[in-house]
């Protein structure tokens, strides 16, 4: 189900300030009700801040203003846990698993009372998690921790998944596995993705939003953006070609 314009998430005038500095300024964009929308930009452009602001995770000693609506329902006045219960799933940057808890406990924490947790989906995507259920998450490899982080978000019936740099710091082989999993997830749940790896972006993304210095700089499709070397160079600081796989510098 989506809003009247076919958009699931509408962000309007989103502004975040911290310590007298504007991190993002009046950012406005929509996220489609299907497929993957990718949020791009150079380091420090405000991608993670935007994602956190959508979730109500304010910057330290800062403030967020602007409107966020999910399926036409305003959610910007709600605390973070209530936004999550409205159907937002979150996979944070750097995974942020609970290292002292086991894999099973990390997953159990994400269960919501009254809703059947989707362990079948999680273990189907990441069979390794089932085998490592009793292992402490802090002893897992980066790729395995990413599986836990994504698995936690998938346990609920999400209307939109917000995933922040899921391939950051992972080995190329694991990046491929994670990208394949995200591709499969995107067939059933729309995703708003922050990703630096343009090969992954090329593989997953339909729509693209580019931020520059906290401002909205471009919206369009991934294909359009990546076919314009001048545009990608000016917006992302990276040259692209049909086989580009690197991250922006």
């Amino acid at each position, binding site marked *: 189900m989506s809003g009247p314009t076919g958009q699931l998430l509408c962000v309007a005038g989103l502004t975040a300030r911290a310590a007298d500095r504007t991190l993002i300024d009046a950012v406005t964009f929509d996220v489609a009700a299907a497929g993957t929308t990718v949020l791009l930009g150079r380091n420090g452009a405000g991608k993670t801040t935007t994602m956190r602001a959508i*979730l109500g995770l304010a910057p330290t000693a800062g403030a967020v203003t602007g409107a966020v609506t999910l399926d036409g329902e305003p959610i910007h006045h709600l*605390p*973070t*846990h209530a936004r999550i219960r409205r159907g937002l799933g979150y996979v*944070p940057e750097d995974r942020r698993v*609970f290292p002292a*808890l086991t894999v099973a406990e990390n997953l159990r*924490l*994400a269960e919501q009372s009254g809703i059947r947790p989707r362990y079948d989906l999680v273990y189907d995507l990441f069979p390794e998690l089932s085998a490592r259920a009793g292992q402490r998450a802090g002893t897992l490899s980066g790729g395995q921790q990413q599986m836990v982080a994504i698995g936690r978000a998938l346990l*609920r019936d999400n209307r939109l998944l917000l995933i922040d740099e899921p391939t950051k710091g992972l080995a190329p082989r694991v990046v491929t596995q994670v990208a394949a999993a995200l591709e499969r997830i995107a067939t059933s749940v729309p995703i708003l993705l922050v990703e630096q790896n343009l090969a992954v972006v090329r593989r997953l993304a339909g729509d693209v939003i580019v931020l520059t210095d906290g401002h909205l700089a471009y919206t369009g499709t991934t294909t359009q953006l990546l076919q314009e070397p001048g545009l990608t160079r000016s917006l992302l600081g990276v040259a692209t070609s049909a086989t580009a796989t690197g991250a922006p510098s």
Partner: protein
Amino acid sequence: MSTLVLLTVTGLGLGALYFLVASGLSLVFGLADVLNFAHGLFLSVGAYAAWWATGRSGGTTVSGLAVALAFGAAAGTAAAVAVERIMIRPLYGRPAHQILATVGLSLAGVAAVQAAWGTDARSFRQPASTRNVWHIAGAAVPANRLVLIACAGIVLAALAALLRYSRFGLVVRAGVHDREMVTALGIDVRTSFTLVFALAGAAAGLAGGLGGIYFGAVSPDQGSALLIFAIIVVVVGGLGSITGTAVAAAAIGLFQQYVNYYALGLGDVCVIAVLAAVLLARRERVAGRVLA
């Protein structure tokens, strides 16, 4: 040998008291990031409630003492929940305000107790069975030290089981590490804060009653005095760790007793020195949590 046994049991008894006060302090700070200087007030409320109850339920019998201790724990719980709901809740995320408010409440609490029951210590009635001594390895050990150790052991086991096996415990263990991420999983962590305060108040209230039988009396400044050592235990044991708190409490209780006996009563000073050493060794971690 008998002296060593006596010092060990007495040190563990004191450590048990420290653990009961420090465990709640540690959980509250670990989960809610509240350094609660009014925690000693929960102990005082429990101590005077238990003292009051011993006068009415027949504190000279074992069952009467048990009722008095339960009443003290219940009073500590009620005080902690009220303080969290009324005073702390509007101040979450404002550590400087929390410190000012809880220090102020602590001072006001002592003054209120003094106004109600005077500045002098009040003798705490207890049954003959806890006033007796047990002979262990040649040492005449006061039975009430063993009662304290047993009570602390039961509380430790109960807290550990709660944290290990319940949904609430799972939220606390995760929240101590990364509270924001728990919220980002759709969990309203603040509902757990009240429960953590309630547990902390119950343990401190129980410590108040047990302090009555350990010291033989209750006094208005008992809570504040024990809070200082509880804070040392929390810093040494690790913020938010119940097992670490238990080990640190036992170690500090024993260390204090041994040093007091063998080094001319310098136990308290040496414990402060241990705190200074730990703070120096962990200064970035501790300061980071307190100032965050």
